[in-house]
């Protein structure tokens, strides 16, 4: 049970860690100051959630590690994030479309986790879901603004959606870890979130005058750890560098 819970918590914490890191890469380079501040704000929330999820994961593991050790000293095969969040930022449109596709899932999943049988999970979910509600509102607004903006912004947003769409399906694939979570009443069956998700993104994408691609193909492997993209290793190179180069130092 604890081994499955540990894996499940890594999934939650790695999603926010990796996406928070991607968001932070924009710092100082966004199209306009307000967006710079908003991206940093979202990244900050995600890093804060990472501290909670990975902190709990470390406790559940019971091997004396902490959130920082999990973030900074695991290698790529131990990461459990969705492939979607590790993809490179691309242009601002792709970054915001990815944020929206993630936020929509995150807000639904966290809503269910608030009723988790595990009180610690429920407590973190309650705190994180307030932030997620704000994130999805903001990313949805930006997707609509750019989808239904100029011709160029429309074309770019449609291209972003097409590039990212094959990475959406992984969010709803279940495995034995999920089955154990469902059995213990800790977390929902991933597949059970799909209808609500499709309704939410369907509404926003339509208002944005964009079209959801007609394909259900889904890349997978991130959350189980079977495969990651080549991009994650490069991210870990910068993220973990100081801890790897100067082991044992306190910062």
């Amino acid at each position, binding site marked *: 049970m604890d081994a499955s819970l540990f894996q499940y918590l890594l999934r939650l914490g790695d999603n926010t*860690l990796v996406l928070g*890191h991607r968001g*932070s*890469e924009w*710092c*100082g*380079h*966004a*199209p*306009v*100051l*307000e*967006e*710079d*501040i908003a991206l*940093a*704000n979202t*990244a*900050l929330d995600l*890093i*804060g959630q*990472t*501290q909670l999820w*990975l902190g709990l994961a470390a406790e559940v593991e019971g091997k004396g590690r902490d*959130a*920082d050790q999990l*973030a*900074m000293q695991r290698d790529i095969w131990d990461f459990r994030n969705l492939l979607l969040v590790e993809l490179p930022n691309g*242009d*601002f*449109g792709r970054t915001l479309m990815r944020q929206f596709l993630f936020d929509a899932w995150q807000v639904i999943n966290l809503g269910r986790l608030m009723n988790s049988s595990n009180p610690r999970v429920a407590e973190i979910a309650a705190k994180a879901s307030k932030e997620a509600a704000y994130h999805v509102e903001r990313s949805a607004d*930006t997707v*609509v*603004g*750019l989808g*239904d*903006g*100029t011709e*160029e*912004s*429309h074309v*770019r947003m449609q291209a972003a959606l097409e590039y990212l769409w094959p990475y959406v399906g992984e969010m709803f694939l279940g495995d034995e870890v999920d089955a154990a979570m469902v059995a213990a009443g800790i977390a929902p069956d991933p597949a059970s979130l799909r209808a609500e998700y499709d309704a939410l993104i369907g509404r926003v994408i339509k208002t944005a005058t964009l079209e959801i691609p007609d394909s259900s193909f889904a890349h997978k492997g991130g959350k189980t750890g079977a495969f990651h993209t080549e991009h994650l290793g490069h*991210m870990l190179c*910068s*993220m973990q*560098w*100081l*801890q790897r180069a*100067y082991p*044992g*130092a*306190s*910062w």
Partner: protein
Amino acid sequence: MYAQMVKTAGSGVKDRDEMSEQEQDFQDRIDRGEKIEPKDWMPDNYRITLIRQIGQHAHSEVVGQLPEGNWITRAPTLERKAILLAKVQDEAGHGLYLYGAAETLGVSRDEITEDLLAGRMKYSSIFNYPTLNWADMGAVGWLVDGAAIINQVALQRTSYGPYARAMVRICKEESFHARQGYHIMMKMASGTPEQKAMAQDALNRLWYPVLMMFGPSDKESVHTAQSMAWKIKMDTNDELRQKFVDQTVQQIEYLGLELPDPNIKWNDETKQYDYSDPDWTEFFDVIKGNGPCNVDRMAARNKAWDDGKWVRDGLMAHAEKKAAAKVAAQ
């Protein structure tokens, strides 16, 4: 400072009998310590000088995101990453308030941004130096934000209302940044030998560039005299620099680091520290565009602006469509 070598418009302080009646009233208000507000009459040269100064200050906040942004993805712990990200986000916020203050003088943010990107306006020389090791994130907060505070605390009393109020708000956050930076330095200076070496390297490398932030000596400049009469500038560059040295030397000693300048010595007669002047030739090279990072900094800002055009245009077009739909529905 964040505003350095701002050229004061006009040809120096006017004698009272050269002033029009309106100008005399204006000067009297300033002398009484009243704040000038956007709708009030003001001499053209006062307005022009303030736009230059506030604009340069705003640009410095924005370009200043880059040297620290350089380490966000390499921050060693989740907490350090969050603190650094929040700090850089604050700097972007400072840019926003200051562009807002400049707008009250009749220039738009986009207008002066284009001036920056075309090289017609400047930002502080300090941001043309690289950040090379993690202790730089400590040293920048402690020394760069620390130096900025010395100038900006004085500017809280500046005569232009919106600028003075922006300074009050900004100073609170800058003090927080300086404390966080010093905290990183304490960790590094009391850490492993490698960490201590990083701390010393950061201090040695940034010391003179930070002293240059205050600008060359300006005590005899007629332009300074005019800006001081208008209470746009509150102290001379040398006074501010001395204040900075005096407060920082003890902090260096507390860290147990070596002084970055062998000539730093307490002077019992002047009751302040003697220190070596920075190399002003290097300063003028940096101001002319030949600092270690000028080209990279401007390239990064230009790229952000150019790549972001479609986003700004797209959001604007959408807002216009929405407004038109609202009108049509009425």
